[in-house]
């Protein structure tokens, strides 16, 4: 139990140490991510009280089944992401370490103000990392929206403190069920969190940031930071918002609008990164929709699916076209790089939710779950799946099919397999394998991370297990 805290403080320690040992920055980064992956094997569930003070008084880290899945997903993907894009690290290694500490803190902390601090750590690291693209105006835009969002979040948290005299999420959740006047604080907290989860209308920053990020920063933002933000959103929604039907309806509306606008924009996207970024927005909307309706289990499956697929796809998108060409200019790029191409295809099929892949279980579980709540929502998801399928399959065909003679402007010489980055090929192969294996035998996932059905430790949890497809059955 006491090892939980090390997930946060050891990356910080290595980041601070790299100011002293200037020439060892990269080894310290590798050490940090490796230690964190190793820690995953020895952490055990439970609540860790920092400073030895009991829950509402001190800050506590909550490692229940929900955040356990979160830290496993995030730390292992972070490790793979750094390894597969190691040539893009540059002199920014301490910032990656603080980013890692920030996302771990966001998932683990059980204290609302502590969450604010970790959101700030994560977002400032993200500002610094995205400024590598030299498109400073986009980073500036992100900074302004992010700061206003976190300011409003802080205001909401302090209003809750004024009412309940506590900053602890579980404590407030227990006290807030009978309270009145919660609308404004909850709205403010939701607005603050929606900036990071890319919900309409607070996602104006996403386009400029994702489009201009390199493969490493793009995949970190799209898979790791986005997953962490969604995990936080899920926890806060299910502990605080469950009592307010009005807020829940607003959030469902926002989520559906986000989902539709994201996927339809992705359909119109021209370059690979553009398609991926709008698809990320759409997926965020979908996951928020599931979280607010209490379908935590399918939401987690979708987060895992989205994180793994986006990591693979963003890395490959940057590898084959760092300068962000439209995909019709990249015809046949996968013909020379079959492993990367296969990985990309597997990831996109899983994102659509085709059978045989992990995404299928996520989508089918969310459909069945939503049918119990509303008939319209599953229809929306089905429509969106068709749109998703259309643009992703179109993209895949364009990238595999060399096109007419002379039409392809792609320079064949640059892309021989041997020149490709070995780390990326291994990562892509590994992650594709994970997607396929969990798609074929989902009980593996069921036995390892999702065994416990009482995922989130709150009193208002709706039971998720009854109406869902039993993972143990397989195909």
């Amino acid at each position, binding site marked *: 139990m006491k090892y939980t805290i090390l997930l946060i403080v050891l990356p910080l320690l290595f980041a601070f140490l790299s100011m002293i040992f200037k020439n060892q920055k990269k080894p310290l980064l590798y050490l940090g991510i490796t230690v964190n992956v190793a820690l995953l094997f020895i952490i055990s569930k439970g609540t860790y009280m920092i400073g030895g003070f009991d829950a509402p008084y001190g800050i506590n880290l909550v490692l229940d089944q929900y955040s356990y899945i979160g830290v496993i997903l995030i730390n292992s993907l972070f490790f793979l992401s750094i390894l597969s894009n190691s040539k893009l690290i540059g002199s920014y290694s301490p910032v990656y370490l603080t980013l890692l500490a920030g996302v771990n803190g966001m998932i683990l902390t059980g204290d609302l*103000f502590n969450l604010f*601090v970790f959101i*700030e750590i994560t977002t*400032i690291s993200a*500002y*610094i990392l995205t*400024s590598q693209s*030299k*498109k*400073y*105006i986009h*980073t*500036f835009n992100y*900074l*302004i929206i992010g*700061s*206003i969002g976190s*300011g409003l979040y*802080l*205001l909401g948290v*302090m209003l809750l*403190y*004024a009412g309940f005299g506590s*900053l602890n999420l579980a404590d407030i959740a227990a006290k807030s069920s009978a309270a009145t006047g919660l609308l404004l604080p909850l709205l403010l907290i939701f607005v603050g969190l929606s900036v990071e989860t890319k919900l309409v209308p607070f996602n104006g920053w996403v386009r400029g940031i994702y489009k201009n990020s390199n493969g490493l920063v793009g995949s970190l933002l799209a898979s790791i930071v986005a997953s962490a933000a969604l995990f936080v959103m899920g926890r806060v929604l299910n502990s605080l918002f469950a009592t307010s039907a009005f807020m829940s309806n607003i959030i469902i509306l926002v989520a559906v609008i986000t989902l539709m606008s994201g996927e339809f924009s992705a359909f119109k996207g021209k370059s690979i990164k553009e398609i991926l970024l709008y698809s990320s927005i759409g997926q965020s909307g979908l996951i928020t929709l599931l979280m607010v309706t209490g379908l935590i289990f399918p939401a987690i499956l979708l987060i895992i699916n989205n994180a793994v697929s986006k990591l693979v796809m963003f890395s490959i998108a940057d590898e084959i076209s760092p300068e962000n060409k439209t995909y019709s200019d990249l015809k046949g790029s996968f013909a020379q790089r079959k492993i990367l191409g296969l990985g990309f295809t597997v990831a996109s099929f899983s994102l659509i939710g085709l059978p045989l892949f992990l995404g299928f279980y996520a989508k089918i579980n969310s459909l069945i779950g939503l049918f119990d709540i509303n008939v319209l929502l599953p229809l929306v998801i089905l429509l969106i799946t068709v749109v998703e399928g259309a643009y992703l399959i179109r993209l895949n065909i364009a990238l595999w099919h060399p096109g007419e003679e002379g039409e392809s402007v792609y320079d064949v010489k640059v892309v021989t397999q041997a020149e490709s980055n070995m780390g990326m090929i291994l990562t892509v192969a590994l992650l594709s394998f994970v997607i396929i294996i969990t798609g074929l035998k989902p009980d593996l996932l069921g036995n390892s991370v999702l065994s416990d059905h009482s995922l989130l430790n709150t009193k208002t949890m709706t039971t998720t297990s009854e109406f869902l497809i039993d993972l143990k059955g397989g195909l």
Partner: protein
Amino acid sequence: MIQISAIVLMLLGIYGLLTTKHIIKMIIGLNIFEVGLNIFIITIGYKTGAVAPILTSQNNSSILNFVDPLPQAIVLTAIVIGFGITAVGLILAKKIYVQHNTYNIDEIGGKI
């Protein structure tokens, strides 16, 4: 009254941030917002007739009427975090100026 004044300051900051075209003025708007927010948080813990939360030889016992120290600790953290964000924002503004030779967001928008 001071609570309303804090809310008005926050709103002034957001209004200035939304309406201005000047990048540095956006950061100034952000700062006004943060100042208002900080005052508001402090007022949450204020008690009429209470003393500052420091034990001294005059106010020497914890049974005295103290104002709430937790919002003050929170604001302390918030001010320092706000400074960090302002500094990063300003260095970005400087870089934008070097790239585009202007602080006007409309002119920059055309150049990207």
